[in-house]
């Protein structure tokens, strides 16, 4: 069997830590939003703002890692062969067609995947970060002459949260589309991708 070592130890740690933190943020965030009652507002708020600092710390390491290893290049967008990928998920996958993309150490993500991750990284995450920090420090912002209505800040943060939720659902599902439903999850745990 052909095996490729796709995900280094740091990458896996980053991925799963981030998974836990993002799910924690979504769960507590939507409670703060008033969607349901579980922990209670005070507790949900406390967990949410505690997680955010862990998340920021994690990202400092992740950004450093991407820059120093050059792994950021994995996310350079390309439209090449993207039609084949789309066709695979729309039709081929039901017929047992082989996946048109073969991941390698140099190119871990198929074009559709890379584009999505890039979008999450440069659109959704900054939207959540900037609005979230503005949410946390809105009085200080106002004191500094950058008064933004809380409703506007919350609106941006909520839009970001829905985008992240949408991504999460799609991401988890696509995780089941390896050559076995658990193959991708195993790869993300061990680092080794077993080729189709």
């Amino acid at each position, binding site marked *: 069997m052909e095996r490729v070592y796709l995900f280094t130890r740091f990458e896996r740690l980053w991925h799963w830590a981030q998974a836990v933190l993002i799910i924690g943020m979504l769960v507590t965030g939507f409670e703060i939003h008033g969607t349901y009652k579980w922990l*209670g507002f005070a507790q949900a708020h406390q967990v949410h703002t505690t997680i955010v600092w862990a998340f920021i710390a994690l990202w400092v390491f992740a950004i450093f890692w991407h820059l120093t290893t050059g792994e950021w290049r994995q996310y350079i967008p390309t439209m090449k062969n993207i039609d084949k990928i789309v066709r695979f998920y729309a039709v081929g*996958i039901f017929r047992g067609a082989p996946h048109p993309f073969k991941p390698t150490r140099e190119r871990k993500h198929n074009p559709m995947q890379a584009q999505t991750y890039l979008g999450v990284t440069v659109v959704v995450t900054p939207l959540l970060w900037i609005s979230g920090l503005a949410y946390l420090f809105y009085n200080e912002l106002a004191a500094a002459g950058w008064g933004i209505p809380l409703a506007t800040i919350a609106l941006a943060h909520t839009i970001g949260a829905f985008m992240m939720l949408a991504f999460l659902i799609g991401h988890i599902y696509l995780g089941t589309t390896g050559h076995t439903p658990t193959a991708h999850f195993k790869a993300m745990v061990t680092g080794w991708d077993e080729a189709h």
Partner: protein
Amino acid sequence: MQVLRRVLVAIVAMGFLAGAGVAADDDAPPPKLLKSTADHSKFKELQRVFASGPEVTKACLSCHTEASKQLHQTQHWKWEYTNPTTQQKLGKKHVINNFCTSVSSNYKACASCHIGYGLKDEGFDFASEENVDCLVCHDSTGKYKKPSGFAGHPVTKDTEFPPGSGKIIRGIDLSAIAQKVGKTRRETCGTCHFYGGGGDAVKHGDLDSSLDNPDKALDVHMDAEGLNFSCATCHKTEGHQVPGSRYAPTAADREGAHLRGKADSSNPATCQACHGQAPHTGKAKLNDHTDKVACQTCHIPAFARGDMPTKMSWDWSTAGKRDANGKPLVVTNDDGHVTYNGIKGDFVLEENVKPEYVWFNGTVNYTLMGDPIDKSKQPIAINSFEGSAGDGKSLIWPVKFFRGKQPFDPINKTLVVTHLAGEDDTAYWKNMVWDKAVAEGMKTLHKPFSGKVDFIETTAMWPITHMVAPKDKALACNECHTKGGRLDKIEGIYIPGRDANRLVDTIGWLAAGGILAGVLIHGAIRALRRKH
């Protein structure tokens, strides 16, 4: 023998200990330091019999020569206040409330709470120095009383009152009281302020006699076993000018905490005057609230917490019922509190009341005598707090809404003054006839009265600012950060947990739900085809 020996040993031992006590005389505690430089019982001016209040005041003024002049400048004396913002003439002399409605024509009773002697009608001499009542605020014995019906005078000789009733009001010894004067206490201020509206706890909701000796749970500052604040600790008074007013409250104090040596012109009675603008140490998010939410909103979770119910509404229109003996009917509830009185009507009493909340910028508008009112627009606001999210001056305040139904003139369309208290034929509490009582009340004010009396619903607002709970009893976040919470009706701000943009929520859930449905269908097809 054995017993005798033990007794002897004990006596010797005691003698030894006593000797040791003498030997250690240098270590004895110093004599108790008196806070005051004067013992008023040693003053010859006070060692005499006083037949009346003014005689005591004259004695006081012989040393405190300027005191009455200071008092003359107070609302406590003038019962009159012109609001600098609205230019409305307020004060007890002018406002009409929805309790006993007005002091006019009822001075003899109401003046029990005037800091003077003899305010029985408009003829009172407000320039009189000897008619300032020193004792009502400075009594330390708790024995000083100004019974209703004497225009603010104490009774020094046993007196039958009302005349012919057989009820005796005991005379009090003014000399003993005058010799023990001291600083104001919770009880002295409370003599009037705890009993507003005609009885204990009736009016304010956050002021009642439970504050004479409160525990920490009732008031964290006044806690008799703890900080033991008096009223004047916060209402820090100079020259007898007591700061803090419900006619022109400081709704949003943006100043820092007062410091010794720093010239502070702001109201010293606000929370911020001691606690500043960022009082929650280590809890930055709580400090983020202080620009929108008054301290009182979170720190006074409920009023009337001292086992005394406060009056929440008063319906005068049902007054007039008599019992089988022809006496005014009185109905009490299980706790012994009156809920109906033939001379007053129906009451609703409540304890542990959650306040209502409003934006408040410190300006209060009153409906006064002569202001046109229209029954189709009831309830009429006896007073209303001005404020909004956007005016930059307002905070969200807790208030007691007091709902009433009171007499008015349906022809002239004005509120009316009713002559309630008195031994004459027109007083409502004596004869229970509205037309005569209102006619007499309006006559004393020289105001027109059509002769017709109808009843109109009214509301009054009282700021809630006392009975501050310990911090662990302050409101939890979810009390407001939820749908249908305490601040549900507050407009103009975004409250996380309460508010959401419906369009974004709808699109967001449709998108997330759509993707979920999509992947489930996709997965189901995969499973059915069993290929991948």
